[in-house]
């Protein structure tokens, strides 16, 4: 799915390039499936019942109620793309490329095609992914829901998503990623590029619920123009084999603002390596990153954060709170601040510790057992107030979070 030979050449060169972070994955171990393998649906309600339950778990409502539209990719096939809103345009990325010549100006501009073998694979492999665009000056209150679903065992799923919020528009997206109950292992590679024009706002809320042996390599870049806002909420509390991601926001515009809120629950032998990065170049641009992490069993959680202030009057704050619940688990918090201009403000706050005994005893003196008390405290710790969402979406997100935390 590449238009220019230069890009293709670059991608070819990066085919063997290991990522700078995370365990290296042999892509060939996973089977490539052709696009169009699964048949198209009129709506998500036509999905088999077993899948409906799975996607509901990650916040994607098969009824489509309260949603501006629904998109679903099953393995490598786009099986559904419906949009009721006149403010939003949504389709598969391939269609979009055919429809709009100009889309090539957006391809691989927020994420480098030769970042590593995963971006190269997304560029050279079977096409997949969505295109979502909110029209100038529109504000759709209902969110678009998009689902990346793996239904076949040992599949290599790739997607290249492009999201554009035109000037002064507001766009809300809920993304759920999940696997069918009979899938044990698979690989998901998702490249997502966000372009937020002047005065526009995107909120992007993503819930992951992969099978225990799934490898996940998202690659995300966000470009913000003047007065643009991006809010990213990420929830992962179910076991996964490995995930490594490091979305990067480029706050190029004046007064542009980005907020990352992440909730990580490590279980079994999951290795979760997730970071968030903001490059603040626009005057008075700002970034805030908040992470809550809990490690159980033998899980390893790396939570990284990188704030780079490159011009005057930028602000950034990074916060990571972690609870280590088992001796065999680990939380590795790596906050990085990089100031390369005068008159900027960057700060971080990180704490990794244990559950306060005093809190456990307080709950026990209300009749809870020690285990009940501990899990209530952990759920409370992770159920942070996700801010920046319109009220209906906030309530919906709270529900999604509560659902994710039930398994903790």
């Amino acid at each position, binding site marked *: 799915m590449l238009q220019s030979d230069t890009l293709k050449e670059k991608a070819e060169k990066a085919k063997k390039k290991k990522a700078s972070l995370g365990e290296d994955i042999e892509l060939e171990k996973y089977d490539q499936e052709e696009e169009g393998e699964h048949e198209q649906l009129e709506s998500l309600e036509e999905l088999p019942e077993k899948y409906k339950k799975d996607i509901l778990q990650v916040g994607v409502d098969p009824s489509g109620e309260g949603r501006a539209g629904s998109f679903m990719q099953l393995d490598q096939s786009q099986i559904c793309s419906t949009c009721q809103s006149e403010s939003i345009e949504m389709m598969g990325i391939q269609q979009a490329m055919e429809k709009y010549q100009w889309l090539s100006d957006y391809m691989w501009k927020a994420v480098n095609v030769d970042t590593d073998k995963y971006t190269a694979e997304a560029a050279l492999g079977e096409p997949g992914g969505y295109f979502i665009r909110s029209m100038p000056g529109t504000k759709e209150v209902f969110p678009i829901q998009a689902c990346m679903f793996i239904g076949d065992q040992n599949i290599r799923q790739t997607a290249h998503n492009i999201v554009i919020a035109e000037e002064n528009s507001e766009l809300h997206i809920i993304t759920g990623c999940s696997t069918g109950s009979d899938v044990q292992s698979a690989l998901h590679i998702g490249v997502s590029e966000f372009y937020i024009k002047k005065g526009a706002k995107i909120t992007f809320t993503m819930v992951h619920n992969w099978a225990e042996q799934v490898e996940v390599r998202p690659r995300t870049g966000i470009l913000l123009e003047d007065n643009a806002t991006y809010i990213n909420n990420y929830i992962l509390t179910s076991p996964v084999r490995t995930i490594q991601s490091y979305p990067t926001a480029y706050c190029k515009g004046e007064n542009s603002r980005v907020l990352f809120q992440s909730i990580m629950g490590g279980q079994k032998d999951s290795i979760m390596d997730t970071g968030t990065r903001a490059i603040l170049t626009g005057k008075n641009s700002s970034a805030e990153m908040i992470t809550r992490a809990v490690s159980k069993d033998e899980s390893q959680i790396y939570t990284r954060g990188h704030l780079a202030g490159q011009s005057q009057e930028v602000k950034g704050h990074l916060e990571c709170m972690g609870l280590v619940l088992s001796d065999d688990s680990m939380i590795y918090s790596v906050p990085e601040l990089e100031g390369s201009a005068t008159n900027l403000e960057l700060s971080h706050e990180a704490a990794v510790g244990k559950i*306060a005994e*005093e*809190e456990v*005893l*307080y*709950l*026990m*003196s*209300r*009749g*809870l*057992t*020690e285990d009940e008390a501990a899990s*209530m*405290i952990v*759920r*409370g*710790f*992770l*159920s*942070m107030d996700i801010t920046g969402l319109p009220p209906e979406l906030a309530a919906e997100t709270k529900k999604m979070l509560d659902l994710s935390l039930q398994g903790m």
Partner: protein
Amino acid sequence: MVVVELLLEITDLAVEVNEKEILSDIDLYIGEGETHVLLGPNGSGKSTLFMSILGFPKYKITRGEIIFKGEDITNLSTTERVRMGVGVSFQNPPAIRGVRLNDLLKIEHHETDEELSPEMMKMVTKLKFDEKFLERDVNLGFSGGEVKRSEILQLLAQEPDFIMFDEPDSGVDIENVELLAEEINILLDKDKKPGLREKSGLLITHLGYILNFVNAEIAHVLMDGQIACSGSPNEILEHVRKEGFKGCVECCNPIH
């Protein structure tokens, strides 16, 4: 003569904290329907006695026993004791992020519905809380008065048979003390005739102010980890108010 059934029997109790003996020779018997008061200066061991009755792990019982409802609870966990009917209102409870007062009330009142029962909501209103307040993380940023009222509200939900109150009146303005006292009286069956009361209580109070509103049968003065004297709350309080607790030292060491 009415024979009072004993609800709590503490005999020859000695308690260590961090390998240091804090309490010794404690004998305390509280009958069904009785309210006792525990007086004593700071550091005399009042809170230690509370936590020991509650079974917090830091408080090691090295001697003696605690019998509750006829059962030896000396080695039971806090959860087990609470489920048998022990309740407590803390002086400075910890704030727990993400755990809402609402969530706790549901557990305490054994409710499973999304919304609290009308019965529970009545108590909420009585304690001058509203639905919005119930959404708050328990004790997080609560004022002194809110902490006390929330503790009492949780006890009303729990309906324990034996309740310990740690300084329920400290840091609370007069208006709220009366409100709290009213609810404490309900919790302790004070609205019933003495012979019909089933609930018992133990009040820790520094100043005894709450006793103007809550009647107690017996007061105990704790000095240096021992019960120096027991008797009529009014007499003892009058004494303490006049002479301070130093007069009690003599009672504690009769040799001098």
